[in-house]
């Protein structure tokens, strides 16, 4: 099952490599990984999406917790949560395609953030399925380049992951 694990990590050199190393060392999957400092500059927040059986997921959270630089973590998929990923896509946009792409972008509530005579650059945020859906709707033949940020997530309601 797919899981989203959010980690508060000491913002120190080498801390990220420990997390990444742990996944490869113990044969766990990483599907996406995002990391950036938080409002508290001594902490980074890292989000990793992974898949595995319940036993594997339990081991992943336990092994992550064992890393000295991991301060706290939560498996967001255990409760209601919001998941977002940002995607930038360059699309071939000429002639009648331009209006069609614009309509599709509007339906997906994206924005065209850069334009040339033959290319649209589209920005889209949402959960991973929505981004996949957009690519499907556009058709891969018109896609010139895709960059996705990987998943970030946060729990719904009053639950917070902080010190």
């Amino acid at each position, binding site marked *: 099952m797919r899981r989203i694990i959010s980690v508060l990590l000491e913002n120190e050199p*080498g801390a990220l490599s*420990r997390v990444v190393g742990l996944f490869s060392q113990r044969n766990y999957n990483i599907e996406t990984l995002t990391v950036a400092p938080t409002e508290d500059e001594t902490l980074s927040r890292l989000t990793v999406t992974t898949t595995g059986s319940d*036993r594997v997921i339990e*081991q992943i959270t*336990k092994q992550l917790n*064992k890393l000295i630089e991991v*301060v706290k973590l939560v498996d967001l998929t255990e409760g209601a949560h919001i998941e977002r990923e940002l995607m930038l896509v360059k699309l071939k946009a000429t002639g009648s395609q331009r209006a069609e792409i614009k309509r599709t972008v509007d339906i997906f509530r994206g924005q065209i953030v850069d334009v040339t005579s033959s290319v649209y650059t589209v920005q889209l945020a949402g959960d991973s399925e929505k981004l996949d859906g957009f690519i499907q709707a556009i058709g891969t033949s018109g896609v010139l380049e895709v960059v996705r940020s990987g998943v970030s997530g946060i729990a719904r309601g009053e639950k917070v992951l902080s010190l």
Partner: protein
Amino acid sequence: MELLSGADMLIRSLQDEGIEYIYGYPGGAALHIYDALFRQDKVKHILVRHEQAAVHMADGYARASGKPGTVLVTSGPGATNTITGIATAFMDSIPMVVLCGQVASTLIGEDAFQETDMMGVSRPVVKHNLSVRHPEEIPEIIRKAYYIASTGRPGPVVVDIPKDMTTPNERYEYSFPKKVKLRSYNPAIRGHAGQIKKAVDMLMAAKRPMIYAGGGVILGKASDQLTELVQMLGYPITNTIMGIGCYPASDKQHLGWLGMHGTYESNMAMHHADLILCVGARFDDRVTNATEKFCPGARIVHIDIDPASISKTIDADVPIVGPVDAVLKEMITLVKESKEKPDADAIASWWKQIEEWRAFHGMRYETSDDTIKPQEVIEALWRLTNGDAYVTTDVGQHQMFAAQYYKFDRPNRWINSGGLGTMGFGLPAAMGVKLNYPDDEVLCITGEGSIQMNIQELSTCKQYNLPVKIINVNNQALGMVKQWQDMNYESRHAESYMESLPDFIKLAEAYGHVGVRIDKKEDLEPKLKEVLAMKDKLVFVDIYVDRFEHVYPMQVARGSMKDMWLSKTERV
């Protein structure tokens, strides 16, 4: 406030940490530190002949004393040579701090001479590693390193020290922190009371209980509590190879150790148990055999300081995260207070069954009139040392025989690389023990394959006068490899034969020690007696044993706990 250079701060921090010996080897990036060592006499340095041996020496000391060992090496090859030793300590959760020189911070990343990314190289085999970024951080980093290495589930910690952090003429205020606080590292100090209560209720209700203890009992200094609980309950106990000595082997409740080469009675009792109380062990693959066939009728209570050890390979019905001594203490109190008592009839018939198993095999082996059996060597040593020596081993058949036939009644005396299985561990580990316990008998039981992996340390033994006794159980082959080839590869002995063995007697003499050869059965005990009488000499005893002996019992691969070979021809 005193002003000290980074190098002086490092050595002063070791003094303030109470470190007496460090084991190491100098080199360019560590020279400021070595100079600071030279200018004081509180911290003593032992010069090995290969960095791997320095780590095993520190490791042997740590296993015997329960305190962290300390290593000092230079950058590049000095640092990479420690990796096998660090991995050995990591797998067996041994507390240790490894101080590595590094090229100057201004050169890092430029492929400088003797530069290796030791932070990266060591990362998968350390509990933690720390890099010095400013000389002023040194006292705090050293304090943190020892704190992390020796608390919770212990393990090795590497400290990477770029050369410009120890420059002699740059001085800073020195103060050694009294306490360390890490917001992200808080090992459990007690177990969950509700879980402990549940465990005790299950223990009282069990009809076929089995206690399965591991190295965590020794690391957690909980042998007394374990012994008290087990004797109070009157239940059978087995332990892992890492747990040898955590409960007296000569006691009748002790069934020997379990797993691949464990006793018949331990493995049978595990398989048929209805309750397993696991204390500081981790259901390792050398214990469980095929996990899906493991102990089908047993409910499992698992006590461990490391939550990640629980339900990793075998699901625990009652997990208890906490230090084993504290948890066992609470269990003892609850057992004493409990209105429920163990079911005397059920326990009596369980013991009757166990005694039948014990009588069926009972660690027998065939003797011969003319060849010395390796098992006989171990039994003779056990008798002649009253079962009270420190015994280190290397890895292979001799290690299994030593574990089977030397009966340890005390913890911290059996010292072997159980997790990583490192050949070359035995001699340097024995040296680390002997240096710190000069009045005790220290045996290194080894084989002619393993001993050659760190044989150069005979020179270190001469320099520091370390009269360990090296018992070379010489079967002229890589015995365990050969045994597997006999059993699984129709005796095709690919590369398992040690051709061109040196004359070990002359070799020992060349290093300034005594060599003794034993190849006649009638000489075994008298000659060993003579060897042990040479208290102040390192003696290399080369004992020619049966070349065809196998280690039994041996679990059948991918079977359950109870599927075993009991000899070359009997399978149960």
